[in-house]
């Protein structure tokens, strides 16, 4: 790893404190997820709510802990290609098997 690159990383990357704050947010979201789950009147609304919550956790980890926010966009493309395709295939298969109906 060349000198300039690691210097760049020092300036671009979050500090330990920021990593800790992200961890707190992650825990809060998880607590909310489990909490939402016990709120019965939400009914079917629970599914999209839980989806959004876990997607936001996913994004936080990928962007900050995996440094995608600070790294070259190419890494994001390589990863997101697989992720989106997997999501598409899962949705197609569920449609074909009539899970939604």
């Amino acid at each position, binding site marked *: *790893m*060349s*000198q300039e*690159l*690691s210097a760049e*990383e*020092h300036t671009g*990357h979050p*500090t*330990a404190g920021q*990593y*800790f704050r*992200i*961890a707190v947010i*992650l*825990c809060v979201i*998880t607590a909310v*997820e*489990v909490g939402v*789950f016990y709120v019965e009147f939400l*009914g*079917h609304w*629970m*599914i999209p709510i*839980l*989806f959004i*919550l*876990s997607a936001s*956790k*996913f994004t936080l*980890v*990928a962007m*900050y*802990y*995996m440094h995608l926010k600070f790294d*070259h966009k*190419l*890494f994001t493309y*390589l*990863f*997101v*290609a*697989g*992720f989106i*395709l*997997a*999501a598409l*295939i*899962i949705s197609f*298969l*569920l449609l074909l*098997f009539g*899970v939604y109906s």
Partner: protein
Amino acid sequence: MAQEHAAPIHGEDEGTTTGLNHRKMLMWAFLGSDCMFFGSLIATYLVYQGKSLEGPLPIDVFDIPVTSISTFVLLMSSMSMVLAYSALTKNNMKGFRIWMISTAIMGSTFIGFQVYEFSSFATHHVEIDCVNPGELTKYEQHIFDDGCSSGEAHAESHEGLKPQTNLFGTTFYTLTGFHGAHVTLGVVWLLSLLLLSFKKGVITPEKNLDVDLAALYWHFVDVVWIVIFTVVYLFGVFPGF
């Protein structure tokens, strides 16, 4: 140095076309590929959700509070991992080792939870009071109907949830088992790096790529669990699903 520069196969990331490191790029391509691997397993799980012919079903075996704790542990291990990497780049070797050990310990704790969970599911046992059964799940109702018909005081289930029991068992153990295998491999990887860090000059603030890659893998295993926790556990016990 000029020679070094011109031979791209030589350096870590000098002389590459994009200036990005070969191995890091491979790691990201691998993670994209692994998304498809877990995607296929999750697709199988979801396609078969609710298609099991007999119990136990998710609602019978899942213990959300316990799994929430193991989820918490894995999330924290991700934080600890990123702190280990951060400490390394700041030349804080002691901090690096402490955070590495704690990551490995939390990873092992997660595996411990999974072993506990698997074995408790496999030996899942219900006993129903025939006189005063209370609120029953579909599976328990089935046991009640079978066992209480001839005037016994109690009805019991015969076997727990094994992979062979029903579609839920088959898909659940396969999906979470492969995730557990990923975590186990990650723990071995982290411990190997920890050992290597005692050898002089192998892992240094400048030569941090090995740790960087292991960290990427570790966080990926964490995000996969974020998905599994929601899709398998929370949706699994959701009554309308």
